[in-house]
């Protein structure tokens, strides 16, 4: 098996309208990773997922899933891939269970004799067993989302492609999904998690890829990407001018003063873990100079900052 569960080369989708939704994307999702697929609304995440699953034909480029070329080997590969694309979609007048049975029946590679066990196990896993007999149309948004996750887990998978799986879930449900994904990842299942909940990414992802305007603007291990943005120190002092001077003397850059708070970049981008000035020296210098310190903090750049840095601050949906 290839080391990459998903790999694409120059994957591009230009729609009939001329809009380039996905532009030369080279995805590399290592097997066994939990890959956070980030990007603002309209940045091309969902179209990328549709391309990966073969729902949309690429204008250019190619991609492999689980080491097999798509879409040529779709019949072989897709049964091993569970997917949740752009929210749940089921037949409203069928029960939750009957909806799963229909998907199971459509799968030529499952054994009809064990359909019931599979369906029940999937329902159990998302806590929907008790409500499975109800018609889908009376399901709440959270129940619908759970059913979609159950469909993705209907049979043993090697790769899960999940588009905002916690959308519409209550905090309890969000937590359950997070635990479920963590457990699945521990079993060695690769997960591509498209989301805009950065806290979710920080908690469970090992890798991230960031989409912006149809391009993959960053990709790699979460820790490595984080290190690329410089950590900062924050000093809280009643004598901010003196504190700022000390920080400047120590060679820290971008020293800024707001009220009693002074911030500065403690190292250069890409040097996290090996910052040029150790934080403890900063404290020592401040104390030595008799600058009163009320608070001190080193913030490794948080994901949100990194995200905004890569994709711009605007709230506008990418056109």
């Amino acid at each position, binding site marked *: *098996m290839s080391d990459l569960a998903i790999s694409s080369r120059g994957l591009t989708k230009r*729609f009939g309208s001329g809009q380039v939704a996905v532009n030369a994307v080279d995805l590399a999702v290592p*097997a*066994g990773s939990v890959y956070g697929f980030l990007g603002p609304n309209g940045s091309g995440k969902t179209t990328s997922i*549709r391309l990966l*699953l*073969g*729902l*949309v*034909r690429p204008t250019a480029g190619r991609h492999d899933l*689980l*080491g097999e070329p798509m879409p040529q080997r*779709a*019949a072989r590969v*897709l*049964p*091993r*891939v569970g*997917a949740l*694309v*752009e*929210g749940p*979609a*089921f*037949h*409203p*007048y*069928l029960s939750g269970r009957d909806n799963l*049975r*229909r*998907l199971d*029946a*459509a*799968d*030529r*590679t*499952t*054994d*009809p004799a*064990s359909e019931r*066990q*599979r369906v029940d196990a999937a329902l159990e896993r998302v806590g929907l067993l008790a409500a499975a007999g109800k018609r889908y149309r009376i399901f709440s948004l959270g129940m619908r989302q759970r059913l979609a996750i159950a*469909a993705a887990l209907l*049979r*043993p998978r*090697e790769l899960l492609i999940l588009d905002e799986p916690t959308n519409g879930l209550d905090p309890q449900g969000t937590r359950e999904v997070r635990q479920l994904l963590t457990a699945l990842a521990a*079993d*060695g*299942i690769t997960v591509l998690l498209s989301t805009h909940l950065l806290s979710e990414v920080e908690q469970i992802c090992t890798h991230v890829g960031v989409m912006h305007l149809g391009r993959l603007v960053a990709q790699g291990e979460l820790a490595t990407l984080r290190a690329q943005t410089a950590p900062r120190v924050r000093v809280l002092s009643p004598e901010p001018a003196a504190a700022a001077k000390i920080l400047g003397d120590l060679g820290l850059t971008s020293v800024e003063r707001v009220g009693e708070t002074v911030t500065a970049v403690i190292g250069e981008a890409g040097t996290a873990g090996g910052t040029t000035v150790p934080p403890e020296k900063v404290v020592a210098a401040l104390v030595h100079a008799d600058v009163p310190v009320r608070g001190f903090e080193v913030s490794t750049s948080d994901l949100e900052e990194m995200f905004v840095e890569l994709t711009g601050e605007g709230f506008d949906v990418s056109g």
Partner: protein
Amino acid sequence: MSVAEVPAGVVAPPLVSTRFFRSELLLIFGRRRNWVGMAVLAAVPVVLAIAVKVTAPPAGSDVGSFIGNITSNGLFVALASLTLEIPLFLPIAVAAIAGDAVAGEANQGTLRYLLSVPVDRTRLLLVKFGAIVVFALICTLLVAAVGTLLGLVLFGGGPVVTLSGSTLPFWSGVGRLVLVCLYVTVCLTGFGAIGMFVSTLTEQPIGATIAVMLLAFASQIMDAIPQLSVIHRYLPTHYWLSFAELMRDPVDAGRLVPGLLSALAYLAIFGSAGWARFSGRDVTS
């Protein structure tokens, strides 16, 4: 994780599996809307038989037509009902199912999940089309069965007087009626192929259904305009009523062939057009 390891409950794909097809039939015949539609289809022979029974038209009127023959034999309730339903109700029923075939799944978003199961697109169309054929057959048989049963109760059975004036034994008459149902089903199948093609063009099932219904009506209107006689034999509905040939004695099979060929031609053309359209289409719903 190892790929070689075959997970529990997973089998090599069998050459032929009817599971998805059966699931499709359950979906169609489990849907209340379709039950209502079939109830309407079944109501026509009931209304017709009771109306004829109550009003008792003078004997000898309308000789040679199915309705005129009803009082002589219950089987003619079935034939008259099919004659009444084939211009309107049966095409509507087929249009409802065919229009829904692909557009309905696309509209609900279930199409993207079926395709990522994966269901091969050609297989999806074959299953959908097979279900349309079964539905058309069941609807036709339903009308014929209700008509026959009620007709036998109200007007009795016995030998069947054909449209040519000769007499057939009762069971031969039943055999002819079954052939009539098969002919009507083939005609509706060709029409259903058009419906399924239209269904691949849109994500609005109602829109597809209405478009196909309008096509059936327009075809019949044009068929009624003598000045358009040049194109009559190319109209999809032109040969539908030719099933009456099966109630002549002897049957001139040659007069049934054009209708069958017309239906097969529509099936071939619109089946391939639907396939060509759907197999390359981007599914963005």
